């Protein structure tokens, strides 16, 4: 079966970047890792490209965390800050609110266990229960239960964070 890579790319790349972004919290790095995953996929031509891409992306993100490349991240942060300053000129209040919301989401996700977070992010990226089960090493019947728990914890953690911020 011939794979329509243009279509796979169009439909999967954005999901892959979002998935990676919530793991590495650096958009530029997430884009780099997603591209790297696609380059590998184009080389290997897997039969199920979408599932394969998410698996590779997850591994890349994990490697990224393990090797802890701080130098580039630091540079990226500096760049982001510059960009943020430029962007903030027209509407600083809106950008500030966006950054705060992003921080709250990140904190809420960080409060989940690694497996719950992985399952939730895979589901949010559009993966099926079958694909999630395979990638997370779960029985397919456990995916719903894991998602239910992850969603509840995420909502609770986010709400708590909001209340704390309001109290300030």
């Amino acid at each position, binding site marked *: 079966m011939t794979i329509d890579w243009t279509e796979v790319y169009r439909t999967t790349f954005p999901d892959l970047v979002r998935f990676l972004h919530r793991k590495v919290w650096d958009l530029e790095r997430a884009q780099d890792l997603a591209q790297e995953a696609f380059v590998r996929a184009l080389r290997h031509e897997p039969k199920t490209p979408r599932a394969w891409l998410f698996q590779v992306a997850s591994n890349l993100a994990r490697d990224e965390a393990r*090797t802890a490349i701080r130098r580039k991240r630091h540079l990226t942060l500096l760049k982001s800050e510059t960009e943020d300053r430029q962007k903030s000129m027209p509407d600083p209040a809106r950008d500030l609110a966006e950054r705060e919301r992003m921080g709250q989401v*990140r904190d809420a996700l960080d409060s989940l266990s690694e497996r719950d977070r992985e399952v939730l992010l895979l589901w949010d990226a559009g993966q*099926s*229960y079958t694909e999630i089960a395979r990638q997370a090493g779960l029985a397919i019947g456990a995916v719903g*239960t894991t998602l239910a728990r992850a969603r509840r914890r995420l909502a609770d953690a986010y709400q708590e964070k909001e209340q704390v911020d309001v109290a300030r």
Partner: protein
Amino acid sequence: MSHVDEGTLHAYLDGALDELPFGDAQVIREHIATCPECSARLEEEQQIREDAITILSGALPHVELPPLEELRLRAEATSPPRVPRSGRLHRMGWAASVMLAVGAGWMLRGDQVFPFSSSDGFNVPGQVPSLPPAPPVRSERDGSADEPSEKAASPVADRSSAASVSVAEAVAPLDVQAQSRRQIGDQERLAFAPSAAIVTDPARRVGFQLVTAREPVAFRDLLQEKPSPPVSRGVVELPQREIMVGGIEPVLPNASLVATRSSSDGGVAPQRDEREAPRGRVVSNASRSRGSASFANRRAPEGRDRWQDSGRRRGGVEGQLVVPGFELIFMEAIEVGSAAGGLRVVQRLTPGDTLELLHLPEGVQPSDLPALGDEGLGQFSMSRDGLWVVARARRSGQELEVLLERLDNNR
């Protein structure tokens, strides 16, 4: 039926009931529709699900799609050479990126010795774009990095240097190799395995092959699978003026240079000492000096591949060739005098500090090697089944002994 659990309710909300292996999805749907308790819980779970979706949508970055064509080009540029899927290489784990450089017919004159370059990693500068560079080694004497050694100024080294020019010219078009590095932590590594290349220089009768794979065991299998080519006086006849990029297979037959020559190939069998040395026992300690002359050897079965043979005895060659726990920078086949079948292994001990292991050809002893210069290098030799392994590094003999024990015990 009993009430539906929350996991199934979420699967229902996600439209994934049909993926579940248990129960009848239609029965569950009907139950949820008719059971007031489950319906109430469904509403509750639906609210949680929507909250989660709203929260996650608060961290949606704007994604730009780079042209797919760019990624295709990158993929093509970084594709390793294709080998048949039936090959054992495909069954290997592709863990680390490692390169083997197989030098063939380096020296024609039997009385000359392959120019070991114990301190600088690679002795063919032209390969640097395609090979992980050996780190500079600092001299303990003056602290300066990469001072040209006495060997580098020797006539032998001059010839290798001259030969490297043609290698450099030949490999130069592989620009992509220069882009194949990426930073991982503090180390620069190959992001992919560059193409195989074979370069010959008929004027100097020099043959050189670069074969890539990603872990030592792959090389072992590649080398073992290929039949030995005819060998005449320790020199493999390579195609002249042939530059070939992108194919491993036509290169590999020459790589079996490391095999022990058979008695039928007309080669000169190396002199062997018939005395037996206990396996694994350290016979010679020649720290910071010339190799010891106290040498014992045992005849290997005629015509058998040394690496194959060793691998069968110990259940894995890679454990014998490389000290476990240290990054392998590269391996290359070597000849000492007229004796082929040696292997030089360079590993990284610490950043900027390498270990050189010389698996000497059958019948060659450490004292046959060129003497160490005053480079602060320590040397330690060990005989295993009559085959010598020499370790060199900026370490004491005692430390090298420990390293060789690790090599011997594969741990």
